[in-house]
């Protein structure tokens, strides 16, 4: 029977790892870039949660028009950029996993706590990047709610990151102040250097962005061979939920469709022709989705505030928009008064000069500036104006 000591001898020690490219000078540099990516990802992600469930004390302006497109595009871009950086960072410190526990109770507790914080940081970081990239393709091989868990674990990730920075700050400062290559000449001139690994990490990170970001950056569309959204669709715009997927494919085509408008106890029903007979406006507005894809399009329709005025509602009243949708979440949305007031907030009837495609929400859909895609309610059949 081998003894514990025999087994311990067989487990590698940090010094057994050969690569000269590993080292604090590399770790600190990759780690700094990774930290910046995480902070950007966290801040933009938090903003998206605020956009999804806005606290009562906050009013989100319809301006800047492209704000959500930018923040959410940046969220996915920074998360994507972080993946190669995280993998290289973990590679650079892997030997430290094999540091033996220190002797002495107090040292053991300190070491244990630090390891715990690193386990939390590593587990939550990998969780965030894995769950985020799987959400983009719409694959959910788990039992938890993506949105709520991705948010909760984000706080754990950013919290343990701050703890990690606090613990390592002196080491980071020293490492960043020193040249990246070790002072002594390489014993092995053929071996990869720290500089080459650092450059490789940045190139990989940049390529990961270039090869995916075309789903939100128009001029990258033909470069991004790995983007989840090639960027096309009916009438030149991708679709998240089809009419069939929403269970609205029959009702949307019903000739008896009417837009019901209610203000208090007053109601009005308008046919599509009646809506088309009203003064139309045309605006270029983006669809910007939480999955990080976005695309601008030209929308034509009736400003919501004009519809509200038909029944004498206030021009800055809150409006609840309801849909024919019978399947899936986000079947209705609320438009707050300051967005209703904006003349670009429309009940769109046309997209890029054509009658709205059924998968884009025919007979009518909501479109408003600076608004997450899921709240651009499609197949609208009812507007309820708050009095």
């Amino acid at each position, binding site marked *: 029977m081998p003894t514990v000591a025999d087994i311990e001898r067989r487990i590698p020690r940090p010094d057994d790892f*050969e*690569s000269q*490219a590993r080292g604090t000078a590399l770790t600190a540099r990759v780690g700094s870039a990774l930290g910046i990516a995480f902070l950007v990802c966290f801040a933009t992600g938090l903003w998206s949660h605020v956009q999804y469930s806005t606290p009562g004390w906050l009013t989100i302006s319809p301006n800047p028009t492209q704000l959500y497109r930018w923040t959410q595009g940046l969220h996915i871009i920074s998360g*994507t950029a972080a*993946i*190669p950086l995280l*993998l*290289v960072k973990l*590679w650079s410190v*892997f030997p430290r*996993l094999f540091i033996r526990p220190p002797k002495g109770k107090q040292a053991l507790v300190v070491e244990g706590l630090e390891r715990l914080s690193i*386990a939390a940081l*590593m*587990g*939550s970081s*990998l*969780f965030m990047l894995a769950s985020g990239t*799987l959400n983009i*393709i*719409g*694959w959910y091989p*788990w*039992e*938890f709610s993506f949105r709520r*868990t991705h948010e*909760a*674990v984000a*706080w*754990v990730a*950013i*919290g*343990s*990151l*701050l*703890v990690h*920075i*606090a*613990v390592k*700050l002196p080491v980071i400062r020293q490492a960043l102040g020193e040249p990246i290559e070790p002072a002594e000449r390489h014993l092995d*001139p*053929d*071996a*990869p250097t720290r500089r*080459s*690994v650092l450059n*490789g990490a940045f190139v*990989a990170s940049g390529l*990961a962005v270039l*090869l995916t970001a075309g789903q939100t950056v128009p001029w990258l569309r033909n470069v991004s*061979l*790995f983007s*989840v959204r*090639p960027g096309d*669709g*009916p009438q030149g715009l991708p679709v*998240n*939920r*089809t009419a*069939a*997927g929403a269970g609205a494919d029959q009702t949307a085509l019903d000739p008896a469709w009417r837009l019901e408008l209610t203000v208090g106890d007053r109601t009005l029903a308008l046919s599509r022709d009646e809506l088309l007979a009203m003064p139309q406006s045309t605006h270029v507005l983006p669809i910007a989705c939480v999955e990080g894809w976005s695309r601008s399009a030209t929308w034509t329709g009736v400003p919501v505030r004009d519809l509200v005025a038909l029944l004498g509602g206030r021009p800055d009243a809150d409006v609840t928009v309801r849909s024919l949708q019978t399947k899936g979440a986000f079947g209705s949305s609320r438009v707050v008064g300051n967005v209703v007031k904006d003349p670009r907030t429309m009940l769109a009837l046309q997209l890029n000069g054509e009658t709205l495609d059924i998968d884009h929400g025919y007979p009518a859909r909501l479109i408003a500036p600076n608004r997450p895609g899921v709240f651009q309610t499609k197949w609208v059949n009812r507007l309820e104006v708050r009095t």
Partner: protein
Amino acid sequence: MRAARAGLGAVGVGLALWGLWLMRDFNREQLTSEAFWLAGGVVLHDAVLAPIVVLLGYGASRVLPGHFRSSTATAFLIWGTLTIVFLPVLSGQGGKAGNDTILGRPYVLSWVVMTVVLIAYAVVVALIRRRSGRGRVS
């Protein structure tokens, strides 16, 4: 400096605890699944991915001619990390029934092309390195 670090650490602990608080109403099934994914990433990296990379590096440093080592390492770094970034679109999973505006590209073909380009990069840079006489000739 000491106070700043202590403050940063305290804020960090607070934020992490807030994250745990947000999970307070998750049911057992959700928490189990979440724990599986949280621990799964760590185990997958530390017990599978990292040892494989260490062994490949160990093997490559002994098998490859000297002038090939650096360029092969760089190509492998880029190939390996990008392959992991692209795993979701390469997996064939996800997407939505009847919606061809999502996952509508030949990802596997692009990945094969990417692999070939990176191999070509490793070979070309290695040959240049040999011609310029840098490194050891083996």
